[in-house]
């Protein structure tokens, strides 16, 4: 889940929880507020009445011991004053029922006894609870609506803000991490942000990529320059040896030694040429404009390589189950890729061994599989077989310098062809090349 989504989700949920709690508590709160407000009013009314009694005497309300009572027409409030026993004492505010003209009504009642003259009186002031509670419902509704609106508004605001504040991060991820063929030289384009963390992240990523890129670039340049610089002296030596070899006054015995020199020089030449080729591929110096069918390509390779099968009686089958045209490839490089893979299949095969090359669609990708019945590769060595100059234990006896598979790897990477290796020691290896759809077009089946 994206950071942005997580933040928004958390915001929304936390707000909802708080608001739900509030809404649930609201009736209680309103009731409490109402009650205390009502009680306050009742006390005030009581004080006012007592003031009147003090100023004007009890006679204003009571004469001849008759009780006093008064209520509003809808009976939502009432007041009563009675003479009671001198010892009776009461001072409470309670919810009680009263019968007023045959209606039983719930009241909030303040009861208070006081002395006036020499008599004890009981004052009751009541307010119907119905009138107290009647605002609760609408209040709750309004509160709910306002809160809901506010929540939606804040969630929206959060969303917009987190979107805005996290934008640099998503730009960094999108432009500098995802889909970036690592490492690649790009001019540093700073991501606009006022968040220092993101600035730091952006610059750090850029610096890291730059460092990696510089290291790669240096290695490539070194290999390329070194190879070029080596080519000229090799060329001079080769010419000198060839000319000496032709000279009439050189004894055969000496010629054999010249030949040995030539062989060693050839080895040096091969290594240099191979390193140069790899560096050229890695520097994108080859065009990918050729069109060739898999069938033709494999036939070309077969024509070059078949002579190598003869020596140890190895049989080779080419099964192009589905033939496709490869578009936008470099024929020379693909030829060398297949040549090296098949050459290895021959080199590391047993006498009377077999090689099967199969070209077919597997799901949506075209694949070429090269299976041999050779010595196989140990599991612990598999991860290193594509490393330069890495020679496997079993291959030490072979005349190679450990650049065959690195060539294969760089050519495959150049064409974005995937390579998989499955191998069992003593049984054989299978190298599978998986072609990207853009080289083959999509599969006829799907």
């Amino acid at each position, binding site marked *: 889940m994206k950071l942005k989504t997580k933040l928004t989700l958390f915001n929304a949920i936390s707000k909802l929880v708080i608001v739900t709690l509030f809404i649930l508590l609201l009736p209680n709160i309103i009731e409490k507020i109402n009650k205390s407000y009502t009680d306050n009013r009742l006390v005030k009314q009581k004080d006012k009445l007592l003031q009147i009694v003090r100023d004007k005497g009890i006679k204003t309300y009571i004469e001849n011991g008759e009780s006093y009572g008064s209520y509003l027409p809808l009976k939502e409030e009432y007041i009563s004053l009675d003479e009671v026993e001198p010892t009776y004492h009461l001072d409470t505010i309670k919810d009680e029922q009263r019968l007023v003209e045959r209606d039983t009504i719930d009241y909030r009642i303040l009861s208070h006894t006081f002395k006036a003259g020499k008599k004890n009186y009981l004052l009751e002031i009541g307010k119907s609870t119905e009138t107290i509670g009647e605002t609760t419902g609408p209040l709750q509704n309004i509160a709910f609506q306002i809160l809901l609106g506010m929540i939606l508004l804040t969630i929206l605001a959060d969303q917009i803000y987190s979107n805005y504040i996290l934008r640099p991060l998503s730009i960094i991820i999108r432009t500098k991490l995802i889909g970036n063929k690592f490492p690649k030289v790009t001019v540093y384009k700073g991501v606009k942000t006022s968040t220092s963390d993101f600035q730091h992240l952006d610059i750090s990523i850029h610096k890291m990529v730059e460092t990696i890129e510089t290291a790669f670039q240096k290695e490539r340049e070194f290999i390329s320059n070194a190879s*070029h610089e080596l*080519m*000229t002296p*090799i*060329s*001079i*030596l*080769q*010419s*000198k040896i*060839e*000319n000496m*070899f*032709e000279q009439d006054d050189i004894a*055969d015995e000496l*010629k*054999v030694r010249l*030949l040995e020199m*030539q*062989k060693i020089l*050839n*080895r040096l*030449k*091969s*290594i240099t*040429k*191979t390193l*140069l*080729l790899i560096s*050229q591929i890695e520097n994108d*110096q*080859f*065009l990918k404009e050729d069109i060739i069918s898999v069938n033709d390509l494999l036939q070309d390779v077969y*024509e*070059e390589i078949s*002579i*190598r099968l*003869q*020596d140890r009686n190895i049989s080779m089958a080419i099964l192009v189950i589905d033939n496709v045209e490869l578009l936008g490839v470099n024929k*020379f490089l693909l*030829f*060398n890729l297949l*040549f*090296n893979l098949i*050459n290895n299949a021959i*080199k590391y095969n047993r006498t009377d061994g077999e090689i099967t090359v199969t070209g077919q669609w597997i799901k949506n990708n075209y694949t070429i599989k090269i299976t041999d019945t050779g010595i196989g590769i140990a599991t612990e060595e598999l991860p290193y077989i594509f490393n330069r100059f890495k020679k496997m234990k079993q291959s030490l006896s072979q*005349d*190679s*310098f*450990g*650049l*065959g598979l690195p*060539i294969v790897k760089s050519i495959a990477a150049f064409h974005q062809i995937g390579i998989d290796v499955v191998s069992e020691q003593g049984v054989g290896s299978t190298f599978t090349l998986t072609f990207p759809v853009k080289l083959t077009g999509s599969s006829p089946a799907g």
Partner: protein
Amino acid sequence: MNVLIIEDEKALAHELEFFLVKNNYICEICYDGASASEKIAVNLYDFILLDLGLPDYEGLDLLREAKKANPEAACIILTARAEVTDRVKGLDLGADDYLAKPFSLLELQSRMQAITRRKFGITQTVIDLDGFLVNITDRTILYQVNPVNAITKKEFDLIAYLLLHKNRTLTRAQLSEHIWGSVINDDYDSNFIDAHIKNIRKKLSAFAPVDWLETVRGLGYRIKTNV
């Protein structure tokens, strides 16, 4: 034939000269672009061997000059700068061939002979080897009147190369370089030339003995002929 060698590596220039003079070419050498530019403007050559990586001159500019002043001359580019674009540019500018350093002198000679055949209209080159008629241009072999069809492309390449350098011992390394020069692989001592020669002998001896194809013990192979 007149050859102008433009090469700043003196040692290499001398080896080229030594080799070509021995093969009956007349050579002149320039070690830098400026003197080469002068020579091209004044003299006429049949071949110009041009090293692209001159210290004082842009090699491709020199090629342009050469094509202008010496339109008849065949230009062969020799370079250690193996950039693919150089090759394309060079051939676009009218170079007749391109050899990446390091190259075999025999390869250079065979390219020069191929150009000579092409440019100077030697249409049919048929060589008779004890009854085997090898046609270099059509790439066919007849024994008297019977076509020898079993010979593969590679095998013919080998025969043609040996024939081009007839009476000369070619080492396995030289033959390999000619046959598999464009293949980059990591074998340094594998020798499949022997297998090819074995096959050639087998196929041809079905018609007649192939004594003209000699194994030179410990050194290589040679086609011996006095034609």
